[in-house]
Every structure is written in structure tokens, then in C-alpha cells.
């Protein structure tokens, strides 16, 4: 510090005129972050959505390895254990720690109520082990393998969620059903996104009479009650089709009713964005309309589209479940949650075999997860808005 005549003090340190302007390190990362980075930060704050996202990802990964996760094969029948209730797994035997095991599972017939009654036979014990080799299966229908997540010692049974009227293990069937039910949602939403984007951009970019026609069609489709129309359309699928084609047919039907919402969103965005300067610039430089839409306009609101697409997956999964329940959707041998629930069609099941209704648990979980995930994505889709 040097003292001046008028008693003002001036700092001797070298002065950097940019020091005030310069952003803090924290701010700098914020300002330099890409749009997707910002979205991720915002999304992370929404804890429920984050956990739902993790759940959904795990679920989709699990369908790749159904064969390993399921204790039994999809169609394996246990004729000795028909309509068996869920079997308990024990950890302690006579107060002593022995690790997971099951007791023998005995069936007796209750002739007065005409029911099969199951009881534990505590004299026999079967150990439950993890990552073990059990029954062989064909992995993805390509090669044989015998690795299972959990299996029970030879001679014992492991029906964690009970069995159905043919003595098939419910847990395995639910795990295999996941494969079909969640892919229907994913494929369906892809189809409906493609349709929504193509039709919506045609209407929004060109406007005029195309727009008018598309608007009318959307209005008509939206005024149909969904389920009756789905029913009518799936009644059209010929009985002679193979289950795989029926699967694609049902997916297409679900998508046919769903694209309208996305098309509307795309249309209204494009109507506004095509007037922007950068769109005109691209047009003047000779870019073709598909290129302008794809390269310049769509990226501006693609995150919104993904968010709203996520929110409409639950409707598709529920739609498939409802159609299969009515016997109009997928048919055995293809197994989805809806096909499983179709077995729980009468009141007797609720009273006598309530575990047949268990496939509803994954349905509820998945639908809740997609709803929360979609909510989080929608909030994060616009990271510049506070």
C-alpha cells in the first residue's frame, strides 16, 4: 500500500479488468454445459423420477436374461402341484441358521371343499442355492445353457409365487411375461413416435390443406373411445396368424390410436418454429424440407417429444393387458401380463387362488415408474426454465 497525498489508499496488486466479469468456476461449468448436460442435472434433482428411471432400465435389462432369472421354464408343468399357493422360504431350522431352504411340499385333497391343500413337510429340507446350474434351457432360442439365478436341491420345489391351473410356476411366467409386455410398450411407442413426427411435421411445415386434413383426422381418432376401437381392430386380426404376427398386429393397433397426441405437439411446435430466422436461412441456402425439419427444427423440441412419449407408454401397456384379458389380444403360447391375468377372470380366483392375481403387481409398478419418469423428463426437458 502506498499512501497518497489525499489519504486514499490504492491497492498495488496488478489489476485485471476482466476479474469481475470472469465467471466463477462453478458458473463456468454451468454456462459451458451442453443442453443435454443441463437436462441431466435438472433430472437428477427429481429423486423419484431418477429411481423410477433406474427401475425401468433394470427392468429392460432383465428381459434380456429372463431365462436365467426364472427358476423354471415358461411351459414346464408340475402335475403334482396344481394350484399350489406361494411356498415359503426359510432361513432358520429349529432355531439354527442354515441359509435359505424350503421344506417338502405335500399335497392333500380336501374332498369336502374339493380343493387341493398344500402343507409343509418339515422332515425334509431342500437347500436353495444361487447362480447354480439347473434345468437346461435354450438361451434366446440359440444355444443351450443351464445357469439359473436360484435353484432348489433335486427333489424339492420352489414356487415362490405359487402355480396356476396347469401347475406352471407363476414367478417364471411373470418374468417371461415381462419380456412381451414391456417390449410391446417400447415398440408401440417407437411406431407411434415415427407416425406422429412424420404426420405432424407434414401438417406443421406445409400447413394449408394438408394441415386441415390432418387436423380433422386427429379429431376423429380422438373422439373414438379407445378400448372399443381397439377391440374392433383386434377382432380384425385373422385367427390363422402366428402368435408372433399377432404380437406385431396388436402393437400396431395400439400405436395407431396413440400417435395423435405426438402429432399435435409436433405440428404446433413446427408451425411456430418454421417462421424463425434460422429456418428461413436454411431454406434460402437450399436445404430440402426434410433436411430443415430434421436438422434444424426437430432438435429444438425433441426432448419434449421423448418426455411425452414416455408418459404414453403406460397407456399402451394397460391397453395390451386389457385386450389380452378380453381374449382379443395376445394368445398363449405367447405370455404377457395380460395373458396371465386372463386366467384370473372370475370371482373364484379372488376367493380361492388369489396368487393368480399377482401379475398385477408388476403392471402397477411399471406404470407408476413410467409416470414418474415421464414427469421428471418433462420437467427436465426445458433446462432453461426455472
Amino acid at each position, binding site marked *: 500500500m502506498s499512501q497518497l497525498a489525499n489519504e486514499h489508499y490504492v491497492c498495488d496488486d496488478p489489476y485485471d479488468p476482466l476479474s469481475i466479469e470472469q465467471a466463477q468456476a462453478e458458473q463456468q461449468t454451468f454456462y459451458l454445459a451442453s443442453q443435454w448436460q443441463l437436462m441431466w442435472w435438472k433430472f437428477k434433482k427429481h429423486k423419484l423420477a431418477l429411481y423410477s428411471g433406474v427401475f425401468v432400465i433394470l427392468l429392460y435389462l432383465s428381459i434380456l436374461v429372463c431365462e436365467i432369472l426364472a427358476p423354471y421354464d415358461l411351459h414346464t408343468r408340475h402335475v403334482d402341484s396344481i394350484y399350489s399357493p406361494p411356498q415359503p422360504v426359510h432361513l432358520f431350522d429349529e432355531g439354527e441358521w442354515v441359509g435359505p431352504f424350503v421344506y417338502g411340499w405335500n399335497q392333500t385333497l380336501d374332498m369336502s371343499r374339493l380343493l387341493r391343500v398344500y402343507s409343509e413337510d418339515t422332515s425334509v429340507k431342500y437347500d436353495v442355492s444361487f447362480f447354480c446350474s439347473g434345468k437346461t434351457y435354450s438361451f434366446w432360442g440359440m444355444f443351450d445353457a443351464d445357469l439359473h439365478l436360484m435353484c432348489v436341491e433335486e427333489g424339492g420345489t420352489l414356487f415362490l409365487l405359487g402355480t396356476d391351473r396347469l401347475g406352471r410356476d407363476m414367478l417364471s411366467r411373470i418374468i417371461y411375461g415381462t419380456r412381451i409386455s414391456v417390449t410391446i410398450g417400447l415398440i408401440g411407442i417407437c411406431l407411434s413416435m415415427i407416425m406422429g413426427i412424420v404426420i405432424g411435421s407434414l401438417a406443421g411445415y406445409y400447413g394449408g390443406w394438408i394441415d386441415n386434413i390432418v387436423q380433422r383426422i386427429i379429431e376423429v381418432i380422438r373422439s373414438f373411445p379407445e378400448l372399443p376401437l381397439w377391440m374392433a381392430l383386434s377382432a380384425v386380426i385373422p385367427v390363422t396368424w402366428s402368435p408372433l404376427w399377432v404380437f406385431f398386429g396388436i402393437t400396431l393397433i395400439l400405436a395407431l390410436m396413440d400417435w395423435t397426441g405426438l402429432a399435435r405437439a409436433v405440428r404446433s411446435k413446427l408451425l411456430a418454429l418454421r417462421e424463425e430466422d434460422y429456418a428461413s436461412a436454411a431454406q434460402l441456402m437450399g436445404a430440402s424440407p426434410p433436411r430443415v425439419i430434421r436438422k434444424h427444427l426437430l432438435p429444438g423440441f425433441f426432448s419434449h417429444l421423448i418426455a411425452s412419449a414416455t408418459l404414453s407408454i403406460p397407456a399402451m401397456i394397460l391397453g395390451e393387458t386389457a385386450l389380452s384379458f378380453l381374449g382379443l389380444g395376445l394368445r398363449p403360447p405367447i405370455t404377457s401380463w395380460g395373458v396371465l391375468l386372463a386366467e384370473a377372470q372370475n370371482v373364484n380366483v379372488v376367493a380361492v387362488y388369489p396368487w393368480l392375481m399377482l401379475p*398385477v403387481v408388476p403392471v*402397477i409398478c411399471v406404470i407408476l415408474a413410467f409416470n414418474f419418469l415421464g414427469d421428471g423428463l418433462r420437467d427436465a426437458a426445458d433446462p432453461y426454465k426455472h
Partner: protein
Amino acid sequence: MGYVLKRLLLMIPTLLLISFVVFVIIQLPPGDYLESYIAELQAQGESVDMEKVAYLREEYGLDKSFGEQYLSWVTGFVQGDYGYSFEYDLPVSEVVGDRMYLTILVSVLTIFFTWIIAFPIGLYSATHQYSWGDYGLTFIGFIGLATPNFLLALVMLYFANVYFGTSIGGLMDEAYINEPWSWGKIKSVLEHLWIPVVVIGTSGTAGMIRRLRANLLDELHKPYVTTARAKGLPEVRLLLKYPFRVSLNFFIADIGSMLPSIISGAEIVALVLSLPTTGPMLLGALQSQDMYLAGSFLMFLSLLTVIGVLISDLLLAVLDPRIRLEGGVKK
């Protein structure tokens, strides 16, 4: 008045398009009812009344081209002739009859139920944003949204039977079927009706609560609320006097988006509960290719939605002075 006329005229092309789509869909399956009917009779070794078949084929133009069939169906529809149900051997209008009214009754009751449930919850959630009550109620609403209707119906049917002794299925006790309307019959119908209404209502309520909450939150942050609060108006009176009134309009505006899902829900729940509404009959008609019956059902259900949206639009125009649609006062 001009608006009402314009709105009504706009309905005509929409309905025409709907009727065309419906007709295409019911025509899509290969073959027709008569063909499968003849095949079935022959398989059972019974003689086929070819004369009647030929008569029906000519009468209902099954041998004509697609365009001609469509034209005669649509013109008949306008005149109140909905075609002929092959399966029931009756004109469609007689088969449909009461079932349509029951569907409307269930739908209207469900709308009221949804309002009654969603209203206080939405109000509470908006005024107590981010509280435990808000989260809890929203979560319950979500569970209602995520549970498939048909399963909920099944479980409630069972518990209603165990705890209240309500007979399973149908819209009234068996004793009252074909009886003249009496006090006991009405009571029995009401005892059975609450299950479908509650079940269908649960799926719509969650969406309604969320939309109402978002709507009310927008209103609560507007300057007029601050002004009223600054003037010293008690919270409850303030809420009921201003934002509440504004959000009332929203209930009417929401009918349009609720109706299609309510009708969808009503169809599947009716199947599980074997209610004498349109659901079970539509499924049967679709499976047996009874095309005029199926087509009429689809047409009526869509008509119900279109008219519902029309009513909600017209009511809004009357109730909400902010909506000055074409015509009327200009700035």
C-alpha cells in the same frame, strides 16, 4: 347463436368421417356373418334356410359393392334405421335399446363421482403443495390410475359380496329382472351400480386431480390473489371466492377429455361385472361378425363423445366470459 350453429355444422364432417372409419373397420374381417352362419349350420348337419339367407343378403345388400353398402348404412342411420342384427334376428334398434341408456347412466354417474372425489382432493393438494397430505393423496390417485380396471372390479365384486352380500354380477338382484320398477328394484340397482362407478372413476380421478392441482396453482400465484390477501380477506373466503370459481370452469372443460376414457373403462368393467350395458354385447358382436350391431355400437359410443364435447364447449362459452368466441363482442 352463430357460434352454436357453426359448432353444430362442424360436427357433420367429423361424424361422417367417423362413420366411414367405423364402416371400414367392421368390413375388414374376411367373409361376413352369413357365411360363417351357413358354415356353422352345415357343420352341425342342419339344413340351411337358403331362402332366408338369400333374402337377408339382398335386403342388407351384402352382395353389393363397398360404396353402396356404406351409403345405404349411413342414410339408414340418419333416418333411425340402424340395420339388422343377424345374431339376434332383430333390428339393431331393438337390440341396443336400454343398453345404450345404461351406458349413458353409468358414464354420467362416473363423471359426477370423479368430480366429487377429485374436487376436494385437488383443492387440498393445491393449497397444501408439497405437504405430506399432497404427496399421499397424489400417490393414492396414481395407484388408482395404474391398477387395471378389470382386476379392481373383480376384487371389489368379491368384497362387496363378502361384506355387503351383494349378488355377484348384473345390475340388479336376479329376483328383480323382468319385474316392474319398484322401490326395491331401484335400491337393488343402486346397490350394484356403485361398484362400476367407483371402479371406472378411480382411473379418471388421478388425472383430474393432477390437472386441477396444476390449474389451481397457476391461479393461486396470480396478482389478484395477492391483492385480495393484502386487503385482509380470510384465506378460506379468498379461496372460495376467486380461484375456486375460476377452476369450476375447468370441470366442464375437462368433460371432453374424460369421456372417451370413461366409456372405454365402462366397456371393460361391464364385461367383468356382466352388466347389461353395451360392453358385453359389443364384444359378442365383434367376435361373431354381426357387423351392423357392432357398427352401431361403435357409432353410438363415438357419438356420445362428440356430443359430450359439444355440450362442454357450449357450456363453457356460456359460463366463462373470458371465452369470447367468434362473433360476440370484439375488442
